[in-house]
């Protein structure tokens, strides 16, 4: 069953790529979309089979590459990530049909897109070092091509692609190093062999491997300080690709980290978890603060991805801290929170990026300060974006809340603990998660409010139309997933139990128990029923409506001007913009963010007491980029300039280099 589904996925991906290569532009987009959706569905089916059954699927292709084969090992940990991929990929592929029709429909893009979906699906399925690296690189290359999709009319895309290429290869380098050390020690390439051989590693080597994989996979997950590519690359890619990258691809960073650190290496000392937790805390805070102050919709979503990956890291790190001190049931709760967040994040971030794509294609802008009033022009997009916003802000009764709740429960019940570092870290972690939650609510009130409510702030926003059917289908499907995950997270209890059983170094047992309605945690006296919360809210709203019956005595007056304190006309310029909405919080976090603010005042020609115009510009630099990367780049450039002197085009000199090399080789290999 699992094998057949994976085979269907591979065939469908191949069919999509062939369709992308040979069909004419018009039908190409449709067939690529359909085949990609089929590929993702098949992958999702395989993942579901593994998560609901109890078997691990294995297959060997020993002679796929000249030097080694590829092994497929599809266990519950793989499956949960493949499921997340399927959740975002199927709607994104359908959405892509409508989106690409008037946008990125070129052959290159249409070939790269199914390849990306398939490789993201298959990275977790890889059961050997070679396989993992092969799929990883396929994923990196196809996504790089897709980031460059719109480079013709977008200069930003080129610089984004450069950053992305550099970071992704740095990441690959670290991953290859880590895995090669592991495989070398184990004397085998398959994960089974590596797992068996990891026991013989010295603690120091294990820690080095762990840190290398943390760098490599952390860069893919976009956590601080390796996040710099993320807010550049995700906004520039076509929106359904952004959804795929943000919803599913970055999560593979978490997959890799858990797989290498706590499955292959079998877990390590408490400080591994502490480091992951610290990175998670920093990423969550950093990501949400920048998302809050960003007025570019897709950039905001990209920074929020950094935040969410930070939260996932917090869960993984907390689990990594609990497990060595023997609190394994709590560790499984923390891990379950992370995994649930990965699934939820795929659903709501995919949804929000698709929504952003609809807005972008309807208005041509993603600048929040130029949007507004889209709710009545694009009702489907507005409704689905609202669901996504509420979900990502972790508000009940939507799905984001369930994972946030699990995460908080696992952090809160860590005390009393006998490890000092746990005792110190957990209050800080709870505070950061709480602040992140509050700021996320503010961020998405801003994002939804300034995009969809009130009056349009530009002509383009005023002339927007609802997007084509296929795009709406994608949006509605993903919001349906969000709602389903919100009302019935209990369905995920046994899959999460299998995941925690699969990660031997971290967790065991059943993190969540359920009787179908309530969620109950192992070892923690706490309950939650998202379904009953939603029912309660709905019942109370209906009750209020029935009791009050607004407009019973008097007809409701509609379409009157808003009350603006007696002023005669209301224009969109009087509205709060996204920038002004975030201004109080920007002031609060002034010392952390150091925004650059320019205010230009133009005075009236006749008297300087009258003001003609005031321009306010606020720019927030990415502190890491500014302080860490740019100096590094400057150093690298200096080295590059030095190196250029060696290469001056003179054939004589090249011959001389050859001679010197030859002599050196002779001397060395004497």
């Amino acid at each position, binding site marked *: 069953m699992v094998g057949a589904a994976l085979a269907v996925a591979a065939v469908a991906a191949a069919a999509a790529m062939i369709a992308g290569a040979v069909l004419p532009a018009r039908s190409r987009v449709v067939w690529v979309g359909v085949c990609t959706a089929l590929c993702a569905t098949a992958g999702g089916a395989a993942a579901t089979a593994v998560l609901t059954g109890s078997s691990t699927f294995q297959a060997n292709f020993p002679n796929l590459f000249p030097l080694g084969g590829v092994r497929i090992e599809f266990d519950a940990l793989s499956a949960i990530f493949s499921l997340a991929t399927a959740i975002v990929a199927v709607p994104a592929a359908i959405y892509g049909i409508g989106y690409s029709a008037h946008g990125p429909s070129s052959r290159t893009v249409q070939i790269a897109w199914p390849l990306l979906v398939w490789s993201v699906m298959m990275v977790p399925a890889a059961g050997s070092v070679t396989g993992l690296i092969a799929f990883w690189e396929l994923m990196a290359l196809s996504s790089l091509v897709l980031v460059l999709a719109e480079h013709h009319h977008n200069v930003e895309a080129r610089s984004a692609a450069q950053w992305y290429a550099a970071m992704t290869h740095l990441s690959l380098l670290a991953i290859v190093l880590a895995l090669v050390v592991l495989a070398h020690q184990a004397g085998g390439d398959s994960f089974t062999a590596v797992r068996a051989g990891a026991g013989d590693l010295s603690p120091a080597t294990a820690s080095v491997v762990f840190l290398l994989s943390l760098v490599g996979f952390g860069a893919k997950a976009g956590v601080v300080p390796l996040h710099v590519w993320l807010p550049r690359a995700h906004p520039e890619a076509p929106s359904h690709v952004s959804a795929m990258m943000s919803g599913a691809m970055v999560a593979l960073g978490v997959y890799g980290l858990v797989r290498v650190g706590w499955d292959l290496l079998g877990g390590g000392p408490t400080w591994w978890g502490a480091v992951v937790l610290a990175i998670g805390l920093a990423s969550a805070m950093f990501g949400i603060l920048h998302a809050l102050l960003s007025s570019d919709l897709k950039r905001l979503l990209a920074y929020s991805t950094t935040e969410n990956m930070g939260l996932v890291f917090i869960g993984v790190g907390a689990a990594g801290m609990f497990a060595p001190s023997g609190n394994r049931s709590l560790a499984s709760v923390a891990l379950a929170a992370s995994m649930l967040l990965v699934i939820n994040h795929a659903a709501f971030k995919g949804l929000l990026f698709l929504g952003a794509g609809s807005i972008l294609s309807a208005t041509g802008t993603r600048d929040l300060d130029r949007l507004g009033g889209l709710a009545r022009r694009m009702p489907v997009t507005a409704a689905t974006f609202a669901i996504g916003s509420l979900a990502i802000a972790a508000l009940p009764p939507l799905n984001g809340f369930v994972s946030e709740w699990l995460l908080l429960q696992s952090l809160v019940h860590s005390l009393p603990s006998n490890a000092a570092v746990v005792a110190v870290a957990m209050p800080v972690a709870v505070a950061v998660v709480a602040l992140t939650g509050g700021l996320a609510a503010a961020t998405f009130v801003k994002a939804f409010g300034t995009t969809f409510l009130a009056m349009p702030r530009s002509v383009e926003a005023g002339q927007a139309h609802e997007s084509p059917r296929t795009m709406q289908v994608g949006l509605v499907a993903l919001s349906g997933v969000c709602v389903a995950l919100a009302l019935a997270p209990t369905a995920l209890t046994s899959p999460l139990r299998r995941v925690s059983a699969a990660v031997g170094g971290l967790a065991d047992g059943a993190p969540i128990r359920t009787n179908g309605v309530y969620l109950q945690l192992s070892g923690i006296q706490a309950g939650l029923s998202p379904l009953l919360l939603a029912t309660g809210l709905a019942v109370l709203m209906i009750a209020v409506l029935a009791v009050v019956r607004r407009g019973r005595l*008097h007809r409701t*007056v509609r379409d*009157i*001007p808003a*009350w603006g304190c*007696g*002023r*005669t006309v209301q224009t969109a310029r009087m509205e709060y913009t996204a920038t002004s909405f975030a201004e109080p919080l920007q002031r609060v976090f002034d010392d952390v963010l150091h925004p650059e603010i320019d205010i230009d005042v133009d005075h009236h020609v006749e008297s300087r007491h009258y003001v003609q115009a005031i321009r306010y510009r606020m720019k927030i630099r990415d502190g890491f980029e500014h302080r860490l990367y740019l100096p590094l780049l400057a150093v690298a450039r200096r080295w590059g300039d030095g190196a250029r002197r060696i290469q001056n085009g003179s054939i004589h000199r090249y011959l001389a280099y050859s001679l010197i090399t030859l002599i050196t080789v002779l001397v060395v290999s004497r």
Partner: protein
Amino acid sequence: MLKLLRKIVRIGRVTETVPLGAGPRPSLLLGAADPLRGSVQIRQVDAGSCNGCEAEFAAAFGPVYDVERFGVRLVASPRHADALVVTGPVTRNMAVPLLTTFEATPGPKLVIALGDCARDCGVFAGGHGVAGSVADFLPVDLEIPGCPPTPDDIVVALRRVAGR
């Protein structure tokens, strides 16, 4: 803080204990089924007043007259209001805002013209910037004469509106 506490204890209640006007009066304005009975929210509009009426109006809400005890309260938006209290002659610049405010008030609603200027432009009648009295623009339900009216007058009038 201690000083303030001592002051509170020493001064006690300063509100006039004798009810102003005679006893509670039936609402004269909206009939027996008066929805405003016992609760009147007021939005005050200065249509061009000299601020004399405002000073007296504010005094009516102060500790001594305390019209709030009859269920009258000032609010910040005409959307929350039941009655508009308009002061001053309606100046050219305030005519449109006054009408906007009236339109922004949900019904059933009342308009109260406070002071002589609001009734008939008072001493400003025929002035350059004056567009007319309040009645020229809005249906006035109640007039409070005086230049300015005393807080007593204002309290009596507002009690009629509140029916208490």
